[in-house]
């Protein structure tokens, strides 16, 4: 291992220990901190509402980051219990919430919902959402992941701005609905966006708070991917799509980060340019070339890319961080995924901080957009150990050992190699 890598690892290790302890202390119950009155008080000042009080039907075991518009994370111990993440524990990240249906995991009704199509189309149309159920249905099992997932780990280098997600701003779900391209084909004359359309911009029915000067939330995606992949999801996990997760209709683009999967979609614009809405630029972007951690960047369309296709990533489900394990053979289990454009070919495991790696067994998902499950056995003598996982795909993309090399001010798209610290005895 080079000196540079060794020192980077050391730095990462040190920051992580400090951070973890602060987080644990913040999360400690009053009873656990009874001997530490100052800390109990500190914790009590941090209270937020329970998940079910923010969005009815959500499990109170979720980590609530924001109890106003609703931002909540799934602890890994819950996430790993299900192949398909149930709606009561699936993470939520709302910039704005559509009242009242966003406040409930109940299925939302298609009755009365419309989607407007406009821009460079033959002529603008308004689609009655109930007709979506009559079109050929497409089903996709895929990883839904907030582009901020893992943001807290950037603080190993320099703190970044936004919700301090750990691992659980993601889940695996099955969406169902017609492809957007199928809808466009039903029009007579066909509503074929003209050749100079390069982007589709999606708007949800949610709106900014009163008094905000910021424009409404919207995102643009490349036309080609939208035509190839996007579905107008009306079901999730075999049920009508819940209001909490964007129902009755959500634009879903498999392989893309969660934010691009616009909830409560009610307008699609077919345009030659990417939107210059604040949520398209400068928010939700990453630099094309790495920048020094802690330094600013003025985003332009040319020097940056929106949070579109998910970076390759792996997450260790077992053992969990700080687990006590029996010395000897220990089973390592987790999931890996990427943008689904090519396959994940390998997940590598290391127990010597990256000096040597071995390949785990890998089980590919159906369809390519879901979790690749990996399993491996490592032999751990008694003592403290760090177990690393690193995914590699067909294009040779691999997770960086030090994820901070992709540092960006808002901490998007963390995909550093994952690790857990365990004690074997």
């Amino acid at each position: 291992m080079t000196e540079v890598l060794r020192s980077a690892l050391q730095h990462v290790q040190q920051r992580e220990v400090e951070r973890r302890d602060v987080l644990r202390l913040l999360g400690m119950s009053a009873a656990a901190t009874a001997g530490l009155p100052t800390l109990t008080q500190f914790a009590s000042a941090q209270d937020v509402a329970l998940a079910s009080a923010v969005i009815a039907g959500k499990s109170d075991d979720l980590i609530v980051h924001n109890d106003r518009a609703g931002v909540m994370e799934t602890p890994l111990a819950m996430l790993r219990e299900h192949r398909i993440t149930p709606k009561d524990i699936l993470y939520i990240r709302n910039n704005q919430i559509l009242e009242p249906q966003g406040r409930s995991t109940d299925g939302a009704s298609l009755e009365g919902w419309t989607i407007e199509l406009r821009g460079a189309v033959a002529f603008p149309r308004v689609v009655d959402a109930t007709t979506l159920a009559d079109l050929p249905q497409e089903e996709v099992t895929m990883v839904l992941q907030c582009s901020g997932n893992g943001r807290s780990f950037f603080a190993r280098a320099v703190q970044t701005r936004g919700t301090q997600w750990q691992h659980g701003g993601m889940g695996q779900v099955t969406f169902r609905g017609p492809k957007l391209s199928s809808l466009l084909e039903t029009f007579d004359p066909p509503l074929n966006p003209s050749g100079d359309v390069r982007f589709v911009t999606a708007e949800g029915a949610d709106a900014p708070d009163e008094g905000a000067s910021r424009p409404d939330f919207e995102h643009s995606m490349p036309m080609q991917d939208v035509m190839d992949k996007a579905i107008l999801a009306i079901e999730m996990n075999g049920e009508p799509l819940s209001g909490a997760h964007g129902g009755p209709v959500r634009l879903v683009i498999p392989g893309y980060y969660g934010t691009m999967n616009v909830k409560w979609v009610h307008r699609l614009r077919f345009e030659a340019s990417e939107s210059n809405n604040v949520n398209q630029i400068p928010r939700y972007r990453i630099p094309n070339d790495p920048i020094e951690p802690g330094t600013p960047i003025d985003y332009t369309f040319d020097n940056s890319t929106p949070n579109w296709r998910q970076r390759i990533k792996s997450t260790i489900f077992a053992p969990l961080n700080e687990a006590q394990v029996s010395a000897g053979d220990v089973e390592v289990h987790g999931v890996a995924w990427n943008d689904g454009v090519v396959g994940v070919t390998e997940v590598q495991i290391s127990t010597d901080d990256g000096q040597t790696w071995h390949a785990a067994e890998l089980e590919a998902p159906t369809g390519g957009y879901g979790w690749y499950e990996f399993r491996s056995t490592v032999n751990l003598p008694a003592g403290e150990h760090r177990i690393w996982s690193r995914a590699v795909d067909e294009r040779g993309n691999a997770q960086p050992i030090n994820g901070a090399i992709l540092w960006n001010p808002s901490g998007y798209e963390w995909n550093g190699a994952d690790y857990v610290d365990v004690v074997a005895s």
Partner: protein
Amino acid sequence: MSTLRRVLYAFFIAALLTPAVAQEGALPAGPGAELVYAKCQQCHPLRYVTESAGLPDFLWADTISLMVQLGMQVTAEEEELLYSYLTTYLGMNPPPEPAENDAVAAVSNVDPVQAYATNCSACHGADGAGQAGGFPPIVGHASQLAQADRDYLVNLVLYGVTGPITVAGNDYNGMMPGWSHLSDDQIAAILNHVVADLDPSADLPGGLTPYTPEEIAGARGAGLDANAVYESRPSLP
């Protein structure tokens, strides 16, 4: 990590926080801390601020302007104070040692009008009329609550409240954080001001006796939370 190391870390963190924490607040005491409590918790829990400790200065500046775009109402002076507080106390470098009489200065000579304006008006309005949907009116409402159950308002301010309520036929479903970082004097002064319908010259209605700092002190440490306070809300006619 061993139990011993955990405990050591606990005391390490406690040592970092204790000198800087006024009352039960989560923010290090310093010029501008009150403004952070007052402005930032309107839209998100305070943890977004405390968990962001260590942000580079440019990102704090950027964050403030982002929040203004999102609807935060601040004057130019307030914006400057927020920036100076956040970069000094939650910036990349450790915060300065607190001055010895910081806490003392904060509790003496409370001006209730000023205290209400700083801490309450952003949500409940300068005139106490509230905001449709989110935050109920103070005028004509706080005094009713105080008369029904005087302890309720004390707990409300200390621990916050969350849950749907109806006041004078209007529904509200905002979320009020706890304000336990304020001093006993400040909370008593604010409560007396609000039950008098924000009229500094008015007597307290319905034979209410003024809230006292001792009364506030006595309610601290009850360990309630916003849900428990909601459950205890008196029903009004």
